[in-house]
């Protein structure tokens, strides 16, 4: 009896926190699900269940599928691009060199500026006639005609992804830098003694040890980038011709321009489950890999 009480004490102690978390996180999702099954006036009044009609409309809408596909490309490109740049940047910043403090500040600076402001500045810089980018490229003799970066979906997508990468670098670099500075130095010393090249050190020491940090960077970045509205909204509003719409910009238009709150909440819920699914899948994959990796060592 006493044993049972002792066992339930920790559970009882986390109960208030758990209840609070469920109330704060769970209630909005429940409300969203409730709304998404009903007809909703543009002012948010629920006017009765419509039997999944919102979902039927969403799934029958070609713009939804195009946006979903584009969201995938956008997320993948921004997250992988960010990682590919942040890793070497973090490694350089981890080395001791003259002016490292300044370099670290410069890398972190974009973080201090709101996403919206960054996007506004880039919108100006990318302006075809008056933009700084074209002026620079033309002065440098790289192009002889101004390029209208945001005029077509293909170029607009590319520059938006690049801006997305730029603003994600500080956060990712911080995570990776934290990982690098906590790494044991003796492994490297041993490797040097054994004659390992720089690449080998990176491939067989840094990468495996950095895995947990890279994983957390991937998961967090995917969540942020997948849901990120400001860059695309400010630069193109999902245009031209919906060519840069991702789910969240499309959702914003549906909800606040067209007043279709029912359909918008359906998309919102779908987005939530996509992210939830991704995170669970990724965590499962990672932990299975860890087990596989760990297995042979135990045999030794």
């Amino acid at each position, binding site marked *: 009896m006493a044993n049972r009480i002792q066992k339930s004490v920790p559970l009882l102690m986390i109960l208030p926190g758990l209840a609070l978390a469920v109330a704060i996180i769970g209630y909005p999702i429940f409300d969203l699900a409730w709304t998404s099954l009903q007809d909703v*006036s*543009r*002012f*948010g*009044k629920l006017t009765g269940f419509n039997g999944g009609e919102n979902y039927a409309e969403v799934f029958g809408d070609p713009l939804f599928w195009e946006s979903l596909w584009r969201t995938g490309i956008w997320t993948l490109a921004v997250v992988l691009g960010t990682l590919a740049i942040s890793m070497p940047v973090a490694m350089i910043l981890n080395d001791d060199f003259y002016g490292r403090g300044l370099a670290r500040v410069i890398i972190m600076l974009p973080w201090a500026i709101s996403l919206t402001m960054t996007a506004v500045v880039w919108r100006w810089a990318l*302006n*075809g*006639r*008056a933009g700084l980018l074209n002026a620079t490229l033309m002065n440098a003799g790289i192009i002889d005609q*101004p390029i*209208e*970066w*945001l*005029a*077509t979906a293909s170029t607009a997508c590319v520059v938006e992804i690049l801006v997305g990468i730029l603003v994600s670098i500080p956060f990712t670099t911080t995570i990776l830098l934290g990982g690098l500075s906590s790494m044991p130095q003796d492994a490297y010393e041993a490797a040097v003694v054994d004659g390992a090249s720089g690449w080998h050190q990176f491939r067989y020491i840094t990468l495996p040890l950095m895995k947990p940090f890279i994983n957390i960077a991937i998961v967090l970045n995917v969540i942020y980038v997948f849901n990120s509205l400001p860059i695309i909204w400010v630069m*193109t*509003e999902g*245009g*031209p*011709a*919906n060519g840069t719409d991702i789910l969240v910009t499309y959702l914003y*238009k549906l909800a*606040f*321009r*067209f*007043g*279709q709150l029912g359909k918008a909440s359906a998309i919102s819920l779908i987005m939530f489950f996509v992210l939830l699914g991704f995170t669970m899948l990724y965590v499962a994959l990672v932990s299975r890999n860890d087990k596989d990796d760990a297995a042979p060592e135990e045999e030794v």
Partner: protein
Amino acid sequence: MTHPFRTSTAILALSLGMAGLASAETVVDFTVAEYSSKTGPYFQEVADAFQAENPDIKINIEVVPWDTLLQRLTTDVAGGSAPDISIIGTRWLLDFASQGVAEPIDSYLTPEFKGTFIDTFMAPGVIDGKIMGLPVAASARAMMVNMDLYDKAGATPPKTWDELYEASKKIATLPETFAFGLQGKEIETDAYFYYALWTHGGDILKADGTSGLDSPEALEAATLYKKMIDEGLTQPSPTNYTREDVFNLFKQGKVGTIFTFPMLIPQIKAEAPDLKYQILPFPEGKAKATYGVTDTLMMFADSDAKEAAWKFIEFAYKDEWREKFDMGEGFLPVTKNVAALPHFTEDPDVAGFAAGLPYAKFAPTIANWEEIADVTVRTMQQIYLGEVTPEEGLKAAAGEINKIRGL
């Protein structure tokens, strides 16, 4: 050092005192759309003057930028904290009225007060025979040409689309110059097309209520725009140019012809005073037309201060205030007395815009208008980019619009 308890009692007493004060007067919440930096101070001035005469009513002005106004009102209404009166885009009025958010004002509007308005501008606020709001601002669109460029190219300002096309060909040969400024990005990209659609004899909706985008007139208009893009008569890549971008090119003297609104005139006078321009009616195809745009002053059905709010509305529509507002913002008058003032009849700029009013077209008051406009914007962008032919694009757009309208 102040004793914390004493401070809090003082605050409590103060707030109680203010609450007592507030209950003695009626508060009217008024959401104002920000037309320019002058809008907020102007309405505050009106409110102060009104409160001096009516100490028992307090007018609470809140200025909201246009871009976020609809979203703001939507969330306010949904959250049960709607203002008592608000300026809104007339194109939103149907949604507000059909949801029971807007209060019909027929019973408040005396015949004398009603008689002060120009009838053309009253019409868009009438829904199902009930007056749902008062016109508060009006503008009409017109063509603006850069006379220096026209003279340099030896072209004469056009009266018809054929003449515009010929003149544009001449102007396009000038270095660093674009003949025709064509908007292709963001808000009102569709309006830039309606100008051509209407003057070619088409309309947004046909008589039977279906979309007019699959009409031969619409095809003719879209084909002409596309042809001008392809022949280099517009600025390159119109889909990267918002309304403001096109107007900025005009202010820099780089564009021969644009379609614009009266609010550009004060901007040109301030930013490019040496620009020689002329305001002309839109080029004609088969019809004369201009786009009339009104904004509406709406009263909310949930308001608990309707009498006080209406008293303020009548005060704010006095001639002296209307004159100050229309002059300050560069709008066309919505009341007869102000329209008769010399400034609005003799100034060539204002007269140029006002000339179109007798044949002005308005955006139709139909449900889901924003979504229908978005379909049109997307289609025009696809046509400008060459992703679809005008014929395919317009036909698909008409089908999509008819579906949205449930036809």
